[in-house]
């Protein structure tokens, strides 16, 4: 039997993630210092783990309601109100999910009809585009540009919008660029979204990680925007809880109801243990979240400085835990840069093209790694960059 032919063409024809090939390569070099990890290097704060082990010893291990434990939903609602000035009703507008990942899938499946176009602002997290395709939609990449600090500009949206456009996926603070959007940056975007009656799927998973005293602004907080927004957030990055698989989605009731149907049939509920952890995180974890952010901030400044010193142009990231320098000055493309850096110096970074066509001249370096390791990685990278420039120059002179 031809099993290939049994696969849905959508799945069969889907290209494997670009990150996958690189992952396999890095795994052959076990001692490499990896700046390729998109998750915190901290373990989940102890009080959160302890709350869960205590709960496991005494407590219930059953399903929760589809949307989640009522206490957690209330805590999420309160958190969104306090931190981001958002108003979501705990009983009719919030669902806890298997991380932001499930939330992305829920939002897209609830919205998309075959042939609908979804604008995906890139460079961006690698899941959006495949999830749009899996939901039967057509992803339309919307570029952001290094010269604009990778902020979203309304001109780029205008170029891509068509009568078939239904939704727009954005994620700020951004993975991989570290860009954030201020209230000012959002103003024209908000107008655009209203004018074209679009739904914004706003993945705000890095909302707690903004620097330079700039607070995160949610697009849902603008006047009238709640009706246009599906908000995604979670605990993975802010509370160092990636392995727990817990996040949430918030949306106006009609959209909420749609997504809840899918969630109820495909997931039933988010894991109870993880919901308990999430509740503890919101109730008692915000200080530790700030402590981690302070560590990231130190590393951020250190890395930005080191990169600019080695002559790699790099806008200063104001959020998340990534820097996204351009590597064109080395004469290499990002794929070769990443591959050679790994093989010659044992440092792993992710070539930017993985995150979308606007990233092809960049590499993503995650600074969710100790300062000691970052220091060593930066030294090696400097040596590498100097060597490449030298080779480049010699090559040029020979041609000359």
């Amino acid at each position, binding site marked *: 039997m031809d099993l290939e032919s049994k696969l849905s063409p959508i799945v069969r024809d889907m290209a494997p993630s670009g990150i996958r090939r690189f992952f396999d390569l890095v795994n052959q070099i076990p001692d490499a210092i990896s700046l390729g990890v998109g998750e915190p290097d901290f373990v989940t704060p102890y009080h959160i783990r302890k709350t869960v082990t205590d709960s496991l010893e005494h407590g219930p291990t059953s399903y929760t309601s589809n949307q989640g434990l009522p206490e957690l939903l209330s805590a999420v609602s309160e958190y969104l109100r306090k931190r981001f000035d958002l108003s979501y009703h705990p009983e009719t507008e919030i669902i806890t999910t298997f991380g932001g990942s499930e939330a992305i899938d829920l939002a897209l499946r609830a919205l998309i009809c075959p042939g609908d176009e979804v604008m995906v602002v890139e460079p961006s997290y690698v899941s959006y585009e495949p999830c749009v395709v899996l939901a039967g939609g057509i992803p339309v990449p919307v570029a952001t540009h290094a010269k604009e600090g990778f902020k979203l500009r309304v001109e780029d949206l205008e170029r891509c919008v068509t009568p078939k456009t239904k939704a727009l996926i954005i994620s700020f603070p951004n993975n991989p660029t570290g860009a954030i959007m201020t209230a000012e940056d959002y103003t024209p975007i908000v107008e655009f979204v209203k004018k074209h009656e679009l739904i914004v799927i706003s993945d705000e998973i890095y909302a707690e990680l903004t620097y330079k005293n700039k607070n995160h602004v949610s697009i849902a907080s603008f006047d009238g925007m709640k009706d246009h927004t599906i908000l995604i957030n979670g605990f993975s990055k802010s509370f160092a809880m990636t392995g727990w698989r817990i996040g949430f989605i918030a949306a106006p009731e009609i959209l909420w109801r749609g997504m809840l149907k899918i969630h109820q049939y495909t997931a039933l509920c988010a894991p109870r243990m993880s919901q308990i952890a999430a509740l503890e995180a919101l109730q008692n974890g915000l200080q530790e979240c700030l402590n981690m952010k302070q560590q990231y901030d130190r590393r951020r400044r250190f890395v930005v400085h080191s990169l600019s010193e080695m002559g790699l142009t790099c806008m200063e990231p104001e959020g998340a835990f990534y820097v996204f320098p351009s590597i064109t000055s080395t004469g290499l493309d990002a794929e070769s840069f990443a591959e050679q850096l790994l093989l010659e110096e044992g440092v792993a970074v992710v070539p930017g093209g993985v995150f979308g066509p606007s990233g092809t001249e960049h590499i993503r370096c995650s600074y969710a790694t100790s*300062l000691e390791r970052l220091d060593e990685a930066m030294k090696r990278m400097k040596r590498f960059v100097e060597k490449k420039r030298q080779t480049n120059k010699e090559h040029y002179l020979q041609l000359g």
Partner: protein
Amino acid sequence: MELQEEILSVLSENARLTIEQISHIVNQPEDKVRETIALLEKKQAIIAYQCVIDWKKIGKQKVRALIDVQVTPQQAHGFDVIAKRIAMYNEVVNVYLMSGAYDLSITLEVDSLEAVGLFVTEKLAPLDFVVNTRTHFILKKYKEADVLLDTDGPDNRLHIAP
């Protein structure tokens, strides 16, 4: 955070960082960092740069003991004078004035169990202001100077994650 506090906080985690590295981390010119550290050293906000060591790892077993000491402060010997007198011994690494039944808590670090006994009987007890002592041996260390010991497992994360 104010610069002095930020620098101290950075140094408290890793005192080996160079001025250059610190200047990147706190985002201030090197000269300013150098000056600030000099000032902090001068006013003894920075007391010393030390290393947190697990001697066991090189097969050296240092013995640490905590000794509670009850003293009778006399006219000429307030607690300060007594504490400073005890602090003069090389094997004493910490001396604190305490609330509670005992007055001073001292930490001793020596090479052997016998040396602890010798210290107490020959150096501490004979001091005329020492009334009573109580010795506790440290059996195992779990956390030292804010650092958890023997927990440094491998980084469990995948090498590359989106």
